[in-house]
């Protein structure tokens, strides 16, 4: 079987970023010409609390090798509490997926504020490195069925 070696494996990572902090943080990284791995596909949502845990599962099913959810630091949420709700949800989902055999490296969460362009770079580097280490996600990926 031809396996992609870990060095040339370029993971697909779906990142759900909140409009007010993390999206702005990622934007800052971009405008500051900060270099970070190009493996991330960003989806902007209004709040990390808007991210339904099914988004994570669905992304993994549809071919993402990893998922990142990022929001404002605790206390900074534009909607006061959205990130607190998200934190509970993702802790449980992450643990649960790990229990089924889905590596926790694939399901990540971070707090990145609008001023943390440099932190965004670090987060992405760590996420990409983690997913590269565990390889492509093929456990419950939707297979292109041969009839």
């Amino acid at each position, binding site marked *: 079987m031809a396996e992609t070696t870990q060095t040339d494996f370029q993971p697909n990572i779906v990142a759900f970023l909140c409009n007010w902090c993390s999206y702005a943080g990622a934007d800052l990284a971009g405008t500051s010409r900060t270099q970070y791995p190009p493996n991330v596909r960003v989806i902007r949502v209004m709040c990390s609390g808007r991210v339904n845990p099914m988004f994570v599962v669905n992304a993994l099913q549809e071919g993402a090798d990893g998922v990142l959810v990022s929001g404002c630091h605790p206390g900074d949420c534009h909607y006061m509490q959205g990130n607190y709700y998200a934190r509970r949800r993702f802790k449980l989902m992450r643990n649960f997926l790990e229990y089924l055999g889905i590596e926790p490296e694939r399901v990540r969460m971070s707090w990145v504020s609008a001023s943390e362009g440099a932190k965004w770079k670090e987060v992405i580097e760590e996420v990409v490195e983690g997913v590269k280490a565990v390889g492509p996600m093929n456990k419950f990926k*939707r297979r292109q069925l041969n009839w």
Partner: protein
Amino acid sequence: MAAKKLSKDKVGEVLRELSKFRLITPVKSDDVVIYREIGDPEEAFLDYGNSTVPPKKVVFPQTETLFRFTLGNPELREKNVEEEGTTVIFGLRPCDARAMSIVDKLFSWDFEDPYYLKRRELTTLVGMACVQPPSINCFCTSLGGSPFGKEGLDVLLVDMGDHYLFQSLTDKGSRLEEVLGSYLEEATSGDEEKAASMEEDAKAKIVRSIDPQGIPEKLPNLWEHPLWKRVSDACLGCGICTFLCPTCHCFDVQDEVEKGEGRRARMWDSCMFCEYTLHASGHNPRPTRKERTRNRISHKYSYYPKRFDVIACVGCGRCINLCPVNIDILEILEQVVEA
């Protein structure tokens, strides 16, 4: 055709020989017996009662692609069942084989279903007689079946202790007998008589029964009878009784599309689900489990015999054994008789 004998120590070789076809046998998945395609003869689990999921799924898969398409391209690529190749189901129970011959009538009725019929044509059924009825809730003898029934089968095997009595019953069976010629021996004399008496013993061990006489005619007159509410009070509306029924054959058709590529597939559906008859308007002509239960029983015991002259139930007992709330089709039928 003269009966043959298949020594038990040759079963492994026989299965190896048959694995040049798509070979499906009962296997154990943890403690559950299911039918699965096997590569290694060791996987076959022939010392079993009956499977949880009936072998209907081999000829009528739970999910089956009908055709594939690409958005923007009017050309459809139809499924070619032929590519699946010759299939042998080894070791199924006579009731499940009989169920297939009952369902055949539907799929070859007003519209000839090419997928199902092609697969049936490609499939050879090697049955295993029930020397011991697999469960307390077996009642095949009430509905014209038998633990040694031959209907629908191409070959019937009877466990004679150290060997199987091998009887081929159809042309497909004879072809299989030719393939396996070198592993078969002349049947021991007296085996057939012995099998006949074993059949009587097995029948006598079946303790549950119903006399279906008159039920198909009576059911339509009980439409508004209070019994339906009472028998369905405990129903949860799950799909166990229908999905695990060897004669239930309802399906839904759905399109699945991904990045411009898609398929139209059909998948089992159950009349016990509330969405089964739900209209787009929100109206549901079978709004509660009462109507759904009534439909399930009426379909098996009235509509089907009216159209095809055979009751769509073979008495395998799965719906009784596995119902979470002990809804018992025999009890319902008794109430129908008494009503």
